[in-house]
């Protein structure tokens, strides 16, 4: 077998970063990204992109920490380079605050972010409703810049990009030898996975350039994330809600909750509402599957289901997905008893 032809379904942060990793790390393969939506219409474009990871109940903590660390290190290098502005990656400091002392005062990612420590009494005075807090410096990675930056790198290594809605993964056979499924919520249909469901998030993107710190309520429901050209105010977590249209009442609620934490936001202007559906699953699905239909075989690497931790975990899981693709490619190249596959 000569060049192994790989197709990645989905062009959000998972699809594009996996494609870039494959193009760099898997020898003698071609990579094509196929998607219905591209930036700025993907879920990754709505996400604020703060590197503050959630916890996946079904994934071992050491694995989550590894993925987070790999992503952090990758983005940290970009943040300190001349690429930072183009890639939409920046360093932000701030506070995560709690209304009651959390059971876990030091989360698993404390030594991955920078300068993690408990907030002092004086710092907590700014938040009279909160009794405990963590101060640290982390990264923000913004979809609307990062995704085009990934696309550029992909094209630079010879990768192709196709706009097409895929209804069934078999459509990719026999044009492609390996399929990487990064379709997020699309996997309900494409992979028949009923474990994945949307958690609707509504956010406001506002102009408030004097806000230089992030503030996140430990519950994760209210947050203020300053970015390059706007500040993201959030949010909501509505399980099973597929509605992509912004709700005006919810927007009022978000603004009100954020102004309570940061009163200067009363002066925020040019308020834009956005909705994203987090592709949520008890754990990230990162595994190989060999699809079989009659005599046809199609190796698939599933790489989806990151919920609210997509940007935070993407590079680590993309590297792992790439290893799985490499294994599939090896297997295809080995002239071996086919039953081994």
């Amino acid at each position, binding site marked *: 077998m000569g060049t192994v032809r790989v197709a990645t379904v989905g062009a959000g942060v998972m699809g594009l970063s996996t494609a870039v990793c494959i193009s760099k790390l898997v020898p003698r393969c071609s990579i094509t990204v196929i998607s219905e939506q591209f930036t700025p219409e993907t879920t990754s474009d709505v996400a604020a992109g703060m590197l503050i990871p959630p916890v996946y109940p079904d994934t071992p903590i050491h694995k989550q920490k590894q993925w987070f660390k790999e992503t952090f290190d990758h983005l940290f290098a970009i943040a300190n380079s001349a690429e930072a502005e183009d890639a939409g990656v920046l360093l932000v400091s701030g506070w995560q605050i709690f209304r009651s002392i959390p059971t876990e005062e030091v989360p698993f990612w404390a030594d991955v972010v920078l300068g993690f420590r408990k907030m002092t009494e004086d710092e907590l005075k700014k938040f009279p409703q909160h009794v405990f807090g963590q101060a640290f410096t982390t990264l923000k990675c913004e979809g609307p810049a990062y995704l085009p930056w990934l696309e550029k790198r992909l094209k630079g290594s010879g990768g192709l990009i196709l706009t097409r809605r895929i209804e069934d993964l078999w459509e990719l056979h026999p044009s492609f030898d390996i399929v990487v499924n990064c379709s997020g919520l699309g996997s309900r249909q494409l992979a028949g996975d009923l474990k994945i469901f949307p958690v609707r998030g509504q956010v406001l993107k506002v102009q408030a350039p*004097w806000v230089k710190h992030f503030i996140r309520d430990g519950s994760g429901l209210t947050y203020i994330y300053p970015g390059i050209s706007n500040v993201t105010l959030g949010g909501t977590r509505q399980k099973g809600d597929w509605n992509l249209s912004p709700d005006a009442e919810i927007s009022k609620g978000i603004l009100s909750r954020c102004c309570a934490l940061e009163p200067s936001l009363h*002066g925020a202007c040019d308020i834009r509402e956005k909705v994203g559906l987090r592709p949520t699953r008890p754990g990230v699905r990162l595994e190989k599957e060999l699809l079989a239909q009659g005599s046809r075989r199609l190796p698939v690497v599933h790489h989806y289901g990151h919920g609210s931790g997509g940007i935070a975990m993407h590079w680590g899981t993309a590297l792992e997905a790439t290893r799985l693709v490499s294994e599939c490619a090896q297997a295809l190249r080995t002239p071996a008893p086919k039953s081994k596959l």
Partner: protein
Amino acid sequence: MRVVVIGAGVIGLSTAFCIHERYHSVLQSLDVKVYAERFTPLTNTDVAAGLWQPYLSEPSNPQEARWNQQTFNYLLSHIGSPNAADMGLAPLSGYNLFREAVPDPYWKDVVLGFRKLTPRELDMFPDYSYGWFNTSLILEGRKHLQWLTERLTERGVKFLLRKVESFEEVARGDADVIINCTGVWAGALQPDPLLQPGRGQIIKVAAPWIKHFIITHDPERGIYKSPYIIPGIQAVTLGGIFQLGNWSETNNIQDHNTIWEGCCRLEPTLKDAKIVSECTGFRPVRPQVRLEREQLPVGSSNTEVIHNYGHGGYGLTIHWGCALEVAKIFGKILEERNLLRMPPSHL
């Protein structure tokens, strides 16, 4: 009681505001005017980045340490007000970088969350091996002067564009008390060999991904002679120039290159940042702030002059503490003249 404040930088306007706030309700009549040759955006305050940070070494006058702290606490009390951004005020965190270990600064417990930098943080700055992280405040000069001008106008304070040639001319015309906030030009009204310009040049760039201040220190070269990057509300200030005795108000190309190269080396992400503006200002450098009362004989009586100038590169950092001190001296003058209807209990 007629008060004339000479000077409309942060010192002049905040002193005018402080006096009016404290005394207009306890005096029969209080008339405050501000005379200045330059108003915002043409003052030195407008050039300053506005980060609250005193010099690293303890001031020769210990009162200055107290005035710095009073200013920080006063500004901090306004964080949490919906008006903070209108005042030009916001919290700002960042890095102070050194080539070797140094003692902690005397103001480490004034700022918030002061700590040493971790090794991974220092990795971001290969030319430096030691440093601090803390949360401070930014008070943008221009925005703050605009805000003070609005507040003073609301209170009926008048502004006059006027070149004052002498204290006498002001005393004979209008004033019972003169507050001298003429900054680096104070020598024109009364020779002061201790006062010198500390010329600074800065470049403002659009780099909205920068959310932290980064200040480097080179003890051999001296304060402000090492690159610094301070994000403001809209633009980021790049600096690193301090030239004693240089009165040149035009931007200098060598200084531009020094700033640009130094800051790009410190922060490679600046490479393609667009330059928004470039300007020069004069820090009113003095071994210590001149904040004292002087009585000038004018005609048959004495005119009170309260000097408040010479705040070097820490004017915004110390301004409110000094304004309070001037207000105290003013109160004493009122007492001596039996002008107070009731004692200023809130002082």
